[in-house]
């Protein structure tokens, strides 16, 4: 059990290319922290610096209060699960899981006990005699997780462990890893590009982009109060809709969409912060679930007429892709699957302005 602290962490590659910049993160003992971001955002490099697989260019990594910058991976008391499993192909599953224990000189009976314990937690006891090539993708990933948990390390590191699995297995393994965290009560650091994984698994999420931390928060905080346009667009599926427009009016502020497609009154609670933006362009962010079908009674919001382009029935809900005018930018709305709107027709919808987010057009920070 241990805390992890990243202090002004930086990583530059040869030629001065900077991939991680000033990352400061405090991870508490027993916490499940997810680093999430698009490809190339520096999340895996950060994880590899914690593991000791990459040198730290600047800054410090502390594990359990101890500076580990110069420690080799084997002395950091960590375990890591790799995206591509990285099982030793010439060894059986048993030997793969036991490898770390044997290296550390554990007595044979203890090795046997721990390997069987780990295998039973993961449901792979009957696979212990097999070589990795005789396992399915999910079984391989379980064996890789077994190799990690058997040593009972201070910190678990997961580098996109579910990316190679099919969608159904991914959901299953996701819950298994969450259950494992509850059972082992160990600090876990998990890297993924999948915001759903981040939202469903993490106690705390670190959103990264271009080597910089964008926001560190609990999942719902991140969803409801994104700090900037990037976080707002990255977290949530389907992604948040963005509309550029101007703030007009003197007393009662109004948002007027750039192309004149719609106007909406800004709720009083948001007016105070937006007053300074009167006459300026801002970005309005609205999640697809905060756009309602106009025919539904009893809902408040700004009425907007849109052109439906594509309708995707998902079973329990429908995604409606719409635009303003035939060739306008595409946006998404998410409705209950009661009736299907027709593609190519106009549709009255309600924008729930109380759920709207406003962003500074230049800095992209939330207003």
């Amino acid at each position, binding site marked *: 059990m241990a805390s992890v602290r990243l202090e002004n962490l930086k990583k530059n590659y*040869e030629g001065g290319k900077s991939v991680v910049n000033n990352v400061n993160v405090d991870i508490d003992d027993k916490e499940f922290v997810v680093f999430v971001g698009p490809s190339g955002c520096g999340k895996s490099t950060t994880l590899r610096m914690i*593991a*000791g*697989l990459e040198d730290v260019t600047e800054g410090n990594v502390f594990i359990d209060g101890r500076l580990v910058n110069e420690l*080799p*991976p*084997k002395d950091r008391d*960590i*375990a*890591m699960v*790799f*995206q*591509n*499993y*990285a*099982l*030793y*192909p*010439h060894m059986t599953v048993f030997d793969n899981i036991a*490898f*770390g224990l044997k*290296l*550390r000189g554990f007595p044979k009976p203890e090795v046997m006990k721990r390997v069987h314990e780990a295998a039973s937690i993961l449901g792979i006891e009957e696979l212990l005699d097999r*070589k*990795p*090539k*005789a*396992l399915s*993708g999910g079984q*391989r990933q379980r064996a890789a997780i077994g*190799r990690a948990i058997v*040593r009972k390390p201070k910190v678990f590191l997961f580098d996109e462990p579910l990316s*190679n699995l099919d969608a159904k297995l991914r959901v299953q393994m996701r819950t298994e890893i969450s259950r494992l965290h509850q059972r082992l009560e160990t600090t876990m650091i998990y890297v993924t590009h999948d915001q759903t994984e981040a939202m469903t698994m993490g106690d705390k999420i670190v959103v990264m982009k271009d080597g910089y931390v964008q926001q560190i928060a609990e999942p719902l905080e991140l969803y409801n109060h994104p700090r900037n346009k990037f976080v707002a667009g990255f977290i949530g599926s389907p992604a948040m809709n963005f509309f550029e427009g101007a703030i007009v009016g003197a007393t009662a502020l109004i948002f007027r969409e750039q192309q004149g497609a719609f106007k909406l009154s800004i709720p009083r609670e948001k007016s105070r912060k937006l007053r300074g933006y009167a006459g300026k362009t801002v970005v309005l962010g609205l999640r697809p679930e905060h756009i309602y079908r106009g025919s539904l009674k009893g809902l408040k919001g700004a009425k907007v007429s849109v052109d439906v382009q594509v309708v995707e029935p998902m079973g329990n809900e429908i995604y409606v892709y719409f635009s303003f005018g035939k060739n306008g930018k595409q946006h998404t709305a998410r409705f209950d699957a009661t009736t299907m709107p027709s593609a190519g027709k106009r549709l009255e919808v309600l924008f729930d302005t109380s759920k709207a987010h406003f962003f500074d057009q230049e800095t992209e920070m939330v207003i």
Partner: protein
Amino acid sequence: MISSYAMLVLFSVIALFPVWQVVSISLRPGNKLLSTDLEFIPSNPSLKSFVTLLTERDFLIWMGNSALISIAVTITGVAIASMAGYGFSRFRFPGKNMGLLSLLTTQMFPATMLLLPMYIMLIKLGLINTYVGAIVMYSATALPFCIWTMKGYYDTIPTSLEEAARIDGCSQFAAFYRIILPLAAPALVITALFSFMTAWSEYVVAAQILQDSSLWTLPLGLKSFEASMSTEWGLYGAASLMVMIPVVILFLTLSRWLVSGLTLGSVKG
């Protein structure tokens, strides 16, 4: 289908006929050595050449010398190439590309061109007419190819395996010999066979370095059957066959390691 079998049979005959001729010559009695008929088994076959070779000539000494030098070259080749190849495959260091290119360049010179400088160098080092001289020369000749072979093979083994091992408790070197080296078995076998063959059947370099007949290797010994007035063809044939035997055994023993797909299942493929 039939035509491909016909082609295979044709090429097999072309490849095997000379071998059979050697067998045939080794079995011929003394008065038929220069016979040009194509009979498969000579009339009155005899094993006399084999007996003479083993009892009256220094054949076993030559074989011992060849074995000593070839095994030493094999061990040196495998040890150095396995580590050098790993270094070239996994690490970034100044002069890496230059080093690889230089190794490749050495392969472009014919061995005979190197004889004179090699001879001078070995004299200065006091290694002429020694086993060590031959071992050094053969190792130096075999290494560039072996290093490239090993490097190419290591490149196909995912680095995440070593990283997993390093996290599991291995040092960089332990990760290399516990995880990567066993997976590189096919390349190690190729390297071993190539190194062995470089020394085992080589004549030109051996003739320059090993002048004392007690140090002769098999090719030098075989050449001694060729006198100015006559050649002992029966012994030549018998010795040629005996030279083949260790190589055939080595190939058969090591061939079980020449398999593909050793890294199957280790990573998502």
